[in-house]
């Protein structure tokens, strides 16, 4: 038994060392990869776009930069619809260098519907440095604190990508924006859009509030935008209208300007040539959309910066 206990202790020490070494190596590798969410923050963007795949694929940050004449970066991440994620990224952003304007791409899932919190794992590498990130990632599961005893665990499912990116020396010429190619095929496209519903999720609403207040506390102007979707069936239109009302209500209470291109029904975005699928614009559509949205943002950039009314909590918790 004694031999077994000693072996266990020795093996635990070996594991501890392997974990620390792996974690430290990945910590050093992260800034050299496009996986790093802070990569764009180091450019100190004046306009930052936050959101999910609809932000990532819709806001051509290079076009936005040229159109507005100021540094811009797209921080959209595919699959990240939850305001918990955006709140964490916003907190990182203001900790590094607050932008002048934050464009928050919203949809029904910003305030309603179910989200898979496992997607928040991309924030794990930053949990030690930013209290707000820690607050968010601890919501993933009740065992998250135990998992985070490991230095390597925050890189779960990321390590291979990081190594490949480093080997390829991947760059980010389009400032976070990723273009989708191809066109919507109305005959083949049978997948109905996901609908969040109009029933508000109190947790999401709370985190959206924290996100907005956290940005404003650092003098950042916030504008919410809902980018275009391809006109769908009457049932989906009706769902989109219900989501619009839910979003408008919550954003109105937070006094956040809200531009909805989904219900605006612009003639430019009734053409399937500009879409990759019903929810996403292709590169041509994204470029057109970015030009339009850039013009819509000018008045807000000209507006005075908000007063830092509510300071962020020191522990990063969203209450």
């Amino acid at each position, binding site marked *: *038994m004694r*031999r*077994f206990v000693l*072996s266990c202790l020795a*093996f635990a020490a*070996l*594991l501890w060392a*392997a*974990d620390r070494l*792996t974690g430290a190596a990945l910590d050093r590798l992260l800034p050299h990869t496009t996986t790093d969410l802070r990569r764009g923050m180091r450019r100190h963007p004046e306009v930052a776009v936050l959101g999910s795949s609809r932000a990532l694929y819709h806001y051509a940050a290079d076009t936005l930069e040229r159109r507005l004449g100021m540094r811009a970066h797209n921080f959209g991440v595919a699959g990240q619809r939850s305001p918990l994620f955006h709140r964490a990224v916003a907190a990182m952003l203001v900790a590094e260098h607050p932008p002048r304007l934050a464009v928050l791409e919203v949809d029904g899932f910003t305030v309603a519907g179910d989200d*898979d919190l*496992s997607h928040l794992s991309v924030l794990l590498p930053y949990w030690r440095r930013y209290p707000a990130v820690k607050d968010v990632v601890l919501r*993933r*599961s009740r*065992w998250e604190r*135990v*998992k985070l005893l*490991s230095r*390597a*665990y925050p*890189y*779960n*499912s990321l*390590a*291979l*990508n990081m190594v490949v990116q480093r080997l390829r020396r991947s760059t980010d010429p389009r400032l976070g924006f990723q273009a989708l190619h191809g066109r919507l095929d109305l005959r083949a496209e*049978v*997948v109905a859009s996901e609908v969040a519903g109009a029933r508000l999720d109190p947790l999401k609403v709370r985190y959206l509030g924290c996100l907005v207040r956290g940005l404003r506390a650092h003098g950042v102007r916030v504008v919410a935008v809902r980018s275009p979707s391809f006109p769908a069936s009457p049932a989906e239109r009706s769902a989109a209208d219900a989501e619009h009302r839910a979003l408008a209500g919550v954003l109105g209470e937070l006094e956040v300007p809200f531009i909805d291109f989904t219900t605006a029904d612009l003639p430019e975005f009734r053409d399937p040539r500009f879409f990759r699928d019903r929810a996403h614009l292709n590169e041509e559509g994204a470029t057109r959309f970015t030009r339009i949205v850039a013009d819509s943002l000018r008045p807000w950039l000209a507006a005075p910066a908000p007063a830092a009314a509510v300071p962020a909590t020191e522990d990063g918790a969203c209450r």
Partner: protein
Amino acid sequence: MLFNSFEFVLFFLLVVGPFFALPQAWRKPWLLGWSAVFYMAWIPIAILLILFSTTIDYFVARALDRGGTPARRKWWLALSLITNFGVLFVFKYYDFFIGSAASIGRLTGVGFEPPLLHLVLPIGISFYTFEAVSYTVDVYRGKYPAERSYARLLLFILYFPKLIAGPIERAGHLIPQLEAKARFDYARVRDGLVQILWGFFKKLVVADRLALYVDGVYDHPTHHVGSTALLATVFFAFQIYCDFSAYSDIAIGTARVMGIDLLRNFRRPYFAVGFRDFWSRWHITLSTWFRDYVYQPLGGNRHGFWRTNRNVLLVFLVSGVWHGASWTFVLWGMAHGCLLVSENLWDRFVSPRVPSRLSAPLWLRRAGTFAAVMLAWVLFRADSVGDAAHLYAQMFTNFDLGGLYLGADVRHTAYALFGVAVVWGVERLSEGGIYPRLFAPRLKPVRWLAYASVVMLIVLIGVFDGGQFIYFQF
């Protein structure tokens, strides 16, 4: 309580940690109590079903042991079988059979709407029912004496490592081990822990990662072309193997740490040459259960070639039904029955006429076996017969390699392929050992490096938000 959860790790430490420090007399109550806690972590009241079946089996076995006329003994056995299978039927099959009967009635114009029960399936019911039945049948056949201790019989049924998804134990194998005094044995404990670790690797790194792709395709079968359906089916073949064998590894490893050898459940099934060989390697404890309690009572191979094949078909029909109350499982069982019968026909009528120099090489026969087994998995995984038919049709009429879907995130697919390669390579090298030879070099530093590498791979590419084991639903 899932094996792939932190709750189970805590439970394991809590139960196994003090186990060897306890006096021998306290060990059985200790295991019995914690096994009950383990089962009641799902739906506490479901334990009443186990208590009910075990109580009936206890008294039936005592009555059988006392002797009596053959007719009386048959009545006692019938009571046990009706009780065990009755409970299983009500909870697992009633809605399926009654619903199917109603559907047939509607088709034939005899419209009736019988009430359905919509009962929640008690977890592990198919497994512990088979263990309970094997106990009474063994006592009836005189292969095992009736248990005098009710607690001992209850522990045989409830013993937590194998309670939910096997291996399906036999009283004659497990009860004497539960009785024996287990001493702390460094090598056994180490072997058990290593087998648990390998189980975690297969579940977290391979099975749950493959599931991300497989579920994406099988949940929307009409959205995908044949090449995608085929890739998803190949992935599912590895997913279900890694998932189920991982459960068995964790169960067997946990018991081994406590000094108990559970029956082996898998022996590199995808290296099988032929379908008989496959079933002697896949879910071995279920195959041997059907052999001993269904196939042999039907006459086995004692009444000629054609009746042997009829018995094979019947056994696989029952095996399909055992897996789930759905027509997809029935067809899956029948497909395997047909494969075995075809093999028997080939061996009897074709093989003797083919010169040995023309017989297919081993690797080709192995690949052919895998391909047939893999195609049959479509029926097992598809949500309906219609979905399965659509997937088969896509595979054979609309392959379209250009439309191959690589997953919502190609990283998952890459990690999964890496995991499959590791499992395949390790199994290839293990040559049927208890656990992979990767973990058994003589040099301790090399061995430890292998353990540590597996742990780090789990940390870096394991899926920690995965679901339950596939066989929990049975």
